[in-house]
């Protein structure tokens, strides 16, 4: 069930009404849980059993870790929990990729025949809910969290439908404490939730879905194109993926908000990032902070000397890349960001620029340089064919400017460029006014009604004929 469908709107409305009608907390949580499993069943069929199994596993091990008296025993149960969670993830997401890599190595040594692929179906959102369950047991192990005694609450923490299939990655310490009181559907939460949802749907349906045909056109076969279409394609894809993914997050935050739950922020104007490190504080924040807290810091972070710091950065980013999908593209994408972070860390100490540049100009320059590399990295993310990727990267870096291509694409895809321009304007505006959604939400009811009406008109006018899936569903 996609967020950008009428089916979801009806689903959400029914759940809200049921939660309002049934006032006992247990009953309300049960309604949300059943609805969440139904939501998952619609998109992933019987894989909901996997979700159930994963929940059982970590609920059990969470308690065991907490009840264990000795550090060895605690560690033992943590290892079992992580083996279970990562084992499930590895099997469903990476088994075929591992076989492919094994075959490539075997072919290198002339060993045949190839090992058979398992053709395993990927359960939707497995990377997201696995990271959530892992954070639960690790936090208990670290004495940062007490296990919940309620299996119902734990199951809801894992399966709550707004964040189930594409995040944000919510931690137990953020969500479970919110389940203490009876759910009250308050007017201000409904208003804020709907503001988030409408903002997200416009980003997805108006921007991402209408920019996507241009991106597909450029990268379906970029060979022969000059630098201008490649750069425009990279720019368009960067905006497309942001509008797609952040839209999902907005809708998730909005839907949760209607029930009174607060989800963590996942994006913070990433196109204004002033360095690679700053980019990861603004892009997919719940993943980057998860990787920082549960991978980078346990590896030693920056506490074990310079060399180890760089190694830790690379390991974290390579695994972060691999988290996105079982493909070399994502590994390289992660590795590329690792290199960017390492270079930035190394050069940040050189104060040459900081001393000589006017802070305002320096900031603009920092944004432009950072975005140049970020958009270059989007090529790695988007273009899966190696020949096409190398060609696109070459054209992006070594400029081959054919100005006739600019007018050709501007003419052919005028609408896409209008949208890109509009997006840049809105993004800039949101930078200026800080929190644009809160601003809209603070409008008086009459004006807010006009805003909602306007967004619905936009949906009527610009929604593509087919409901398109969200890019991050595949992860």
């Amino acid at each position, binding site marked *: 069930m996609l967020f950008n469908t009428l089916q979801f709107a009806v689903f959400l409305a029914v759940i*809200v009404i049921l939660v*309002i009608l049934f006032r006992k907390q247990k009953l309300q949580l049960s309604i949300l849980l059943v609805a969440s499993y139904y939501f998952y069943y619609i998109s992933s069929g019987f894989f909901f059993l996997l979700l159930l199994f994963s929940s059982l596993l970590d609920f059990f091990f969470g308690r065991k870790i907490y009840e264990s008296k000795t550090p060895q025993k605690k560690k033992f149960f943590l290892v079992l929990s992580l083996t279970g969670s990562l084992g499930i993830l590895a099997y469903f997401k990476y088994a075929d990729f591992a076989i492919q890599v094994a075959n490539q190595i075997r072919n290198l040594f002339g060993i045949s025949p190839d090992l058979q692929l398992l053709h395993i179906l990927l359960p939707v959102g497995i990377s997201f809910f696995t990271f959530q369950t892992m954070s639960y047991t690790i936090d208990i192990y670290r004495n940062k969290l007490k296990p919940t005694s309620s299996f119902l609450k734990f199951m809801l923490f894992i399966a709550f439908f707004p964040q189930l299939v594409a995040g944000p990655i919510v931690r137990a310490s953020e969500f479970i404490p919110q389940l203490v009181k009876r759910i009250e*559907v*308050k*007017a201000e939460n*409904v*208003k804020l939730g*709907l503001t988030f949802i409408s903002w997200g749907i416009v980003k997805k349906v108006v921007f991402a879905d209408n920019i996507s045909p241009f991106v597909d056109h450029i990268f379906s076969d970029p060979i022969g194109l000059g630098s201008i279409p490649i750069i425009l394609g990279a720019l368009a894809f960067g905006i497309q993926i942001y509008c797609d993914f952040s839209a999902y997050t907005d809708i998730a935050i909005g839907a949760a908000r209607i029930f009174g739950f607060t989800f963590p922020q996942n994006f913070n104007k990433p196109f204004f990032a002033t360095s690679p490190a700053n980019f990861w504080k603004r892009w997919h924040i719940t993943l980057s902070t998860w990787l920082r807290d549960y991978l980078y810091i346990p590896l030693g972070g920056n506490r074990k000397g310079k060399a180890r710091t760089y190694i830790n950065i690379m390991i974290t980013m390579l695994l972060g890349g691999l988290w996105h999908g079982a493909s070399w593209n994502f590994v390289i994408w992660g590795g590329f960001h690792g290199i960017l972070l390492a270079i930035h860390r190394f050069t940040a100490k050189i104060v040459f620029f900081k001393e000589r540049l006017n802070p305002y100009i320096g900031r603009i320059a920092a944004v432009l340089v950072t975005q140049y590399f970020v958009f270059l990295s989007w090529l790695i993310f988007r273009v899966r064919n190696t020949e096409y990727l190398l060609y696109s990267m070459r054209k992006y870096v070594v400029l081959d400017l054919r100005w006739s291509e600019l007018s050709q694409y501007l003419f052919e895809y*005028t*609408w896409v460029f209008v949208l890109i321009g509009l997006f840049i304007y809105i993004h800039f505006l949101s930078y200026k006014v800080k929190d644009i959604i809160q601003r809209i939400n603070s409008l008086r*009811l009459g004006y807010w*009604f006009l805003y*909602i*009406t*306007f967004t*619905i*008109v936009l*949906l*009527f*006018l*610009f*929604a593509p*004929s087919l409901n398109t899936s969200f890019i991050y569903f595949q992860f």
Partner: protein
Amino acid sequence: MKKDRWGIILLLPAAIALAFMIYVAIISLYIDPYLSDYSDLGRSSEIFLFYQSAPDCPKVYYWGSSSIKEDLDLSGQSCQFNLGNPASTPLRGIAELDAMINSGPQIVVITVGPMSFSNAWLFPDDQYALISPYVKQIPSMYNKTVASLLKMDHLDLLLYKRKFLIPAAKTTLDSLKHKLTGSAPPYYYRTYNRDFISESLSKQIPESHAPAFEKKLAEKKSFTEYNVPIGQNSEKTSFEFIIHKLQQKNISVIIVKIPLNPKLVEKIPAEYLQNYDIYLEKVAEAYPVRVLDYTHTYNPSLFYDGHHLNLEGRKLFSQNLTTEVS
């Protein structure tokens, strides 16, 4: 507080209703006029309106694609109508067949070219959608996609029309640009769409030869899109179905092979044209039906592009064809 909550929840359906009304207004006041006046897609529905109110006389219909729409001037001909419709193929023709038969023609002149039987020239989906409210029965020849477009009801169509917002906006921009800079205005299709006698786009085009066609000729080694495959395909099946149905209703059928630019013919692989000729010979024999062949009649100076004549060629062809048909 509770009152507020329900107030906000109830505002939603109100917003949806208001948004829908605004949407309908945009479609009616902006998209529909665009389709009718600035897009040749509007001709599809106009043809159905014509069938509903066709004059009561021994009518001769000239039926086919833009070739016949552009190439034939029927001014001065009594009760003869040019029903050419851009990018039409026999498969699309089926959609209007019943309406056409019901309007009571005496003779139907079906004009065809190699592209009529090649699957590469299928009629744009949009026209199937736009004519769907006019079509009651869906013949089995249509594939599933087309059938779903033909099944559109008025609400579906209303929502479908949003896809023309961008082309309509582009036309508005072109008109503005024309007013401000004197650049070429967008093509005006209102009279073109509603006229069934003599109107053609060539009247709005200043050049008598299309530069784009000359460029294409220089760039392309062969024009494979004119491929007429051996054996049956949905276009051929539809074509024969149309002839059969018309003859069943005692309507005379004449087939006209449209004029082709010799420069284009040079670059169409010989076997494609051979397949085209052989197929039409077979049809002429099987039904039987008269075939008038204009394929190689005119020299390149009379053509606008590969298979459309310019104003001079149009005059000559109109004279020749109407004389031969009558």
